[in-house]
C-alpha cells in the first residue's frame, strides 16, 4: 500500500469533472419534481442524450454541437413522457420506468455503427492566468466548458426558483395544482416545459459521459447514474445547492475510492465501491432532518375537473 501515489490536487481537480453528469441530470430532475412531476426516466434520457450527442459530435467534429444535440435528444425523448403523463394522463411511475427501458433500447439501436469510434476531444476552457494559480488553478480553473455550464445551470435554477415570478409559479404548480389552476395558471403547459428542461439537462449529462469522461460509445454506458441523480434530488430535499453538494460529495468519494483501490489499500474493493453511496446518503439525510418536505402535488396526476 502506498498512499503517496495519490496526488490530492489531481484528486480534487477530477472531482468537479466526475460530478458533472450527476449534477446536470439531478438539477434537471429537481426542476421537474418542483413542478410536481416524478419522471423516473432520467436514466433513459441520459443514455439517449449520450448517443445523440456522440453522433452529432462525431459527424460535425464539434463537441459543442454534440452537447446541443444531446440536449435536444434528451428533450425529444422527454416529449414522449409529456404526452403520456400530461396528455394521456398515464401513471407517472410506470411511464418513467417505460421511458428508461425505451431509452436504453433506442440508444443501443442508434449507436450500433458508433462502437469503437473516437469522438472529437473537447479542450479545457482557457481561463488565462487563473489556471496558473498554484493549487487552486488546477483544481478550479482547468476544466472543460461543460463543468462551468453545469455550475451556471445550478445557480440559474436556484435564482429562478427563489427570486423570479416564473419560479414562484412553477413551485405553486408543484405544491398544489388544483389551487394553481383555480388562479388561472396553465398547469399542464408549465409542467410540460419543466419536463422538457429536465430532459435537456439529462441529455447533456449523458453526453458528458460519452464525450468527455469515457470518451467512446458503449451500450448502457450511463450505468445507473440516472438513478443516482434521482435519489440525489430526494436526499437533497429538492434544494439546488444541496444537489450540488451531494453531486460533488459523490463524485469526490468515487474518485477517492478509485485512487485508494489503485494504491492497494487493505480494504476489500466491494466496501470501497459502496462508500460513495453510503457517505452521500448519510450526509444528505442528516441535512434533510429539517422541516423540508416534498412538493405537495409530486407524482399526482392533474385533471381539471371543470
Amino acid at each position, binding site marked *: 500500500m502506498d498512499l503517496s501515489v495519490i496526488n490530492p490536487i489531481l484528486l480534487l481537480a477530477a472531482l468537479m469533472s466526475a460530478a458533472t453528469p450527476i449534477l446536470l441530470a439531478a438539477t434537471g430532475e429537481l426542476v421537474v419534481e418542483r413542478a410536481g412531476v416524478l419522471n423516473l426516466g432520467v436514466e433513459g434520457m441520459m443514455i439517449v442524450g449520450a448517443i445523440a450527442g456522440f453522433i452529432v459530435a462525431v459527424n460535425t467534429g464539434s463537441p459543442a454541437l454534440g452537447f446541443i444535440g444531446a440536449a435536444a435528444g434528451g428533450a425529444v425523448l422527454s416529449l414522449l413522457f409529456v404526452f403520456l403523463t400530461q396528455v394521456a394522463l398515464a401513471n407517472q411511475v410506470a411511464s418513467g420506468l417505460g421511458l428508461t427501458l425505451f431509452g436504453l433500447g433506442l440508444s443501443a439501436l442508434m449507436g450500433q455503427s458508433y462502437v469503437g469510434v473516437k469522438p472529437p476531444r473537447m479542450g479545457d476552457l482557457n481561463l488565462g492566468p487563473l489556471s496558473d494559480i498554484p493549487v487552486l488553478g488546477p483544481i478550479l480553473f482547468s476544466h472543460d466548458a461543460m463543468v462551468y455550464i453545469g455550475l451556471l445551470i445550478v445557480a440559474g435554477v436556484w435564482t429562478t426558483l427563489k427570486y423570479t*415570478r416564473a419560479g*414562484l*409559479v412553477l*413551485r*405553486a404548480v408543484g*405544491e*398544489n395544482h*388544483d*389551487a*394553481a389552476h*383555480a*388562479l*388561472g*395558471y396553465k398547469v399542464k403547459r408549465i409542467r410540460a416545459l419543466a419536463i422538457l428542461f429536465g430532459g435537456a439537462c439529462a441529455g447533456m449529462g449523458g453526453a458528458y459521459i460519452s464525450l468527455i469522461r469515457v470518451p467512446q460509445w458503449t451500450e448502457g454506458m450511463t450505468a445507473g447514474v440516472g438513478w443516482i441523480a434521482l435519489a440525489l434530488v430526494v436526499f437533497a430535499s429538492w434544494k439546488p445547492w444541496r444537489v450540488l453538494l451531494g453531486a460533488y460529495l459523490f463524485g469526490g468519494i468515487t474518485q477517492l475510492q478509485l485512487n485508494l483501490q489503485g494504491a492497494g489499500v487493505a480494504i476489500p474493493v466491494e466496501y470501497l465501491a459502496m462508500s460513495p453511496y453510503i457517505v452521500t446518503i448519510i450526509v444528505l439525510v442528516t441535512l434533510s432532518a429539517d*422541516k423540508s*418536505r416534498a*412538493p*405537495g402535488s409530486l407524482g399526482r396526476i392533474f385533471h381539471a375537473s*371543470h
Partner: protein
Amino acid sequence: MTALLDLSGVTKAYPGVVANDSVSLTIQPGEVHALLGENGAGKSTLVKMIYGLVKPDAGQMSLNGASFAPSDPRAARAAGIGMVFQHFSLFDALTVAENIALGMENAPPMRQLATQIKAVSETYGLPLAPHRLVGDLSAGERQRVEIIRCLLQEPKLLIMDEPTSVLTPQEVEILFKTLRKLSAEGTAILYISHKLEEIRALCDAATILRLGKVVGHCIPRDTSAAEMAELMVGSALKPPQKAAGASGDVLLELRDLSLPPVSTFGMPLREISVSVRAGEVLGIGGVAGNGQDELLSALSGEVPVPVGTVFFKGDDMARAHPNARRAAGLLTAPEERLGHAAAPDMSLTENAMLTGAAREGLERNGMLDWKAARSFANRIIADFDVRTPGPGNAARSLSGGNLQKFVIGREILQRPEVLVVNQPTWGVDASAAAAIRQALLDLAQNGAAVIVISQDLDELMEISDNFAALNEGRLSAARPAAGLTVAEIGQMMGGAHGMEVAHV
C-alpha cells in the same frame, strides 16, 4: 345607473345534469348580493363562470354595460373581479406574501408587496405577517390571506363562497364589518351561503337557486329565514325531534389525552378530558383544523395513544386497534368520505364489508360471506334512502351527500354503543341532513352515546345535550347545550383569534 354585473339566460350543462338553466342575475355597484341554494343548486358553477373558470354554454354576461366573457381567471381579475374560495386555493409550503403574489397580475417586488400587505391588513383589521408559511396558519388566518389577495387588486366585485364556515361567531362579526366597509366604498359583493341568519344580517338582495334554476328573489331583511328556507328547499322542513336526554352510565371517557401532530402541518391534541354517558349526544364544535381529525383518529384507533387516556365502559382501550374497538362497540365515521370513510373504487357491498365484518358477522374463519354483506349493504341503502342503482356500484359513483348517508348509515346500523361522527351532514342537502340528525338522536335514545364533531353550530345546538369546543387542540369543558348564547359559544371556540374591527 348601469348595473355592475348583469347575467341573462346563462346556461351550463354537464353530462347528465344541467348545472345552470337560464340563470339571470343583476348586481349594482356597492350592493351585497346573496346567492342562496342547497348543495348542488348550481351556485358554484355560476360563480365559476363569472370568475372565468368555466365557460357558459349559452347566455350573456355584461360588466358595466359592456359584454363580458372572461377566458380565464386572469381576464376576470383584470376586469375587477376577485374571488375568495370555499376550499382555500392556497399553497401550504409558500409564504403569505408568495401566495398573495400568485393571485395578482402585476405583483410588485416582494419587499414592497410585504409593506402593501401590512397596510391593507391594518386598514381592514385583518392582521397578517407576510413572511409566515401558510401551512402554519389557522383557518381564519388563511381566509384573511385570500381576502387580502383580492383587496390588493381593488376589485369592483368580490365573490365570497361560504366564507363563514371556518370562522368563530366573533370572527364572523368582524368579517361582516370589513365587508360593510367595502360595500360602503362601492365594492359589490356576491355572497354565497346557506346560512340564512347571516344573509339577513348582511345582504341587500338575494337570488335563490334550486336545481340550477332561479326560483325567487327577495330582500333578506324583510323576509323570514323560514320563508327563504322554503324557497331553497321547495318544501317546509321538519326539524328533528329531540327527547329529553336521559343519561345513563359513562360509556366513553378520555383522561388527559395528548398527542403530537401526525403530519407536518397537523395539530397536536392537548390534555383532552371528557366523558359521555349512555343516551347522551355530545356536540364538539370548533373551527376546522383545530384538532377534529386528530381527535377522531385517536378515538377510532388509527393513531396509537398513550396508555390510560381512552376508557370504554371502564376498560382501557388506548392500545386497542380499530377492529378491536369496533368489535367492542366503539364505532367512528370520519369526515373525508372518499379515501377515508369509504374506498372510492370498491363497491358499496365491499365498503359495507370493510367496517361491518366483525359486528354483522360478514366473515367466517377468514372467508367472506358475500350474501350477508350484500343484504347488509341493501339494508343501509333502504333505511337511509341512498340513491344508487344497487350495492354493486362503486362508492366513487355516488354523489357526496348520498355517500355520506351510506357511511353514516353503515355505522348506525351496526348498533354501536358509542358512535363518533365527524361532519355528519357536510355536503348533504337539507332534508337528508335532517334525516341523518334524526337517526343520530334515535340512536342516543336507544341507549348509545353519540359524539358529533361538526363545524355547523346550528346543527350542534339542534341535537346536542352537551357542547364543548376544540381550539388549538384543546377541548373546553362540556356545558349543557340548552341556554348557551352565541357569544359564549364563540368564546369557547377561541374568540376572535386576534382579529380586530376594521379601522376606518
